[in-house]
């Protein structure tokens, strides 16, 4: 049996943090992605420009640099805001940027840009006649989105979504650098303490592969569901 030198429970907690971080960032990224896609397809020149600027900058800068900027810079920025609040209005609050929140926000922000591209392509794949039909029924914008655009768009979005999730999952490893005890950090500490890097790093690698395989299966199920009514060409 593999000897974990008592690091087993901490490694398990780390794995849980990785999964929570991944799922929460994915949720944020999907919301941001939908907003970005709408902004980029919008007729408003300003919204289009902002959407393009966001995706260009995020995709041009390394994840780790963005994460450090948000984590280290975020605390100072928030302190300046709270200081100003205290000095001008006498409101005394203290907000501590926690590594987990910083991680979720950064990863969500990064993948929101990638999701935006995925969703934009998927939205454009929905037949515009469908949307016109919805309007003709007297549906408002939101109802058209919820009942017509979203369900049909997801069919085209899922392959890209699944890809982005796989990359996002691997990006969560970076939070170990800003001090969050995810499984990579626990494994790195354990490797140094026990001088057995192979044991711990291979376990962590195996857990990542396991999560990836399970989610691949999940996405295949989801794809099948959203493909209902369409037949694959042989």
């Amino acid at each position, binding site marked *: 049996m593999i000897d974990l030198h008592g690091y087993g429970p901490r490694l398990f907690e780390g794995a849980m943090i990785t999964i929570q971080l991944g799922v929460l960032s994915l949720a944020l990224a999907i919301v941001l992605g939908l907003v970005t896609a709408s902004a980029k397809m919008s007729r408003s020149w300003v919204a289009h420009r902002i959407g393009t600027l966001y995706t260009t*900058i995020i*995709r*041009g*800068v*390394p*994840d*780790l*640099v*963005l994460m*450090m*900027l948000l984590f*280290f*810079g975020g605390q*100072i*920025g928030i302190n300046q805001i709270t200081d100003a609040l205290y000095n001008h209005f006498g409101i005394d609050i203290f907000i501590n940027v926690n590594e987990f929140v910083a991680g979720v926000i950064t990863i969500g922000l990064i993948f929101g840009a990638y999701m935006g591209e995925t969703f934009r392509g998927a939205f454009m794949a929905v037949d515009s006649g469908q949307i016109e039909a919805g309007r003709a029924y007297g549906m408002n914008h939101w109802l058209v989105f919820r009942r017509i655009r979203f369900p049909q768009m997801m069919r085209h979005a899922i392959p890209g979504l699944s890809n982005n999730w*796989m990359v996002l999952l*691997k*990006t*969560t*490893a*970076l939070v*170990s*650098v800003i001090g969050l005890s995810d499984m*990579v950090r626990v*494994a*790195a500490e354990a*490797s*140094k303490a026990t*001088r*057995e*890097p*192979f044991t711990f*790093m*291979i376990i*962590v*690698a195996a857990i*990542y*592969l396991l999560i*990836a395989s399970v989610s691949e299966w999940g996405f295949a199920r989801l794809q099948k569901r959203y493909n209902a009514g369409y037949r694959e060409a042989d």
Partner: protein
Amino acid sequence: MDALMTWLEAQLADNSIFTLQTLGYYGEGLVTTVQLVVLSLIIGLVLAVPLAIGRGSTYRWVSLPIFLYCYVFRGTPLLVQLYLIYYGVVFVDGIQETWLWVILEKPFVPALIAFTLNTAAYTTEIFRGAIKSTDRGEIEAARAYGMSKGLMLRRIVLPSAFRRALPAYGNEVIFMLHASAIASVVTIMDLTGAARFVYARFYAPFDAFLFVAAIYLCLTFGILYLFRYLERRLLAHLKPASG
């Protein structure tokens, strides 16, 4: 050159963070980053070509190990691979006494190995996709000419596969540039390492990280334009005819 330096120094005289010294750190970091990325990309490319050919082999004992290699290296974070190689090398018993230690002592080589293995795995998949999408008619024509397998690969399959792989490979190059920021985690003074140093010294996260982000952005655009130029040159025959 001296005139330029004095001019630069005068420009920076009022700036407490971006002095000639800190700019020097960024400059050295830029050199390290470029070295790491270019070296790992070149070695990875050289490894990926035979691997991609082997990946499509009908012999399972050839294609299966390559498939597993790609699956593992594409499915796990680069940071884990880097730690595995970095710590793995350090803790091998007795390695400190051998000649290998002279090279492996610095974190540059373990990082280069990790980056190379990672990019080789991704590039293998890119090439495999390009090789697989070769037009059947081209292969049949080559066979009809009596070409051997090797000759067919060299003259027909690979040249067109490389061209088709170009856009995806451009993305991989940008991905590698961004991934190289991880090198700073194992104490390498690359661009990100320089930014972390400046941040720690002056406690100025915005200056330190926004500056380095701008450098990365410029590098990314440089790569983007280079590949766009290459695509225009090499993929000109695939463009839809203009009316």
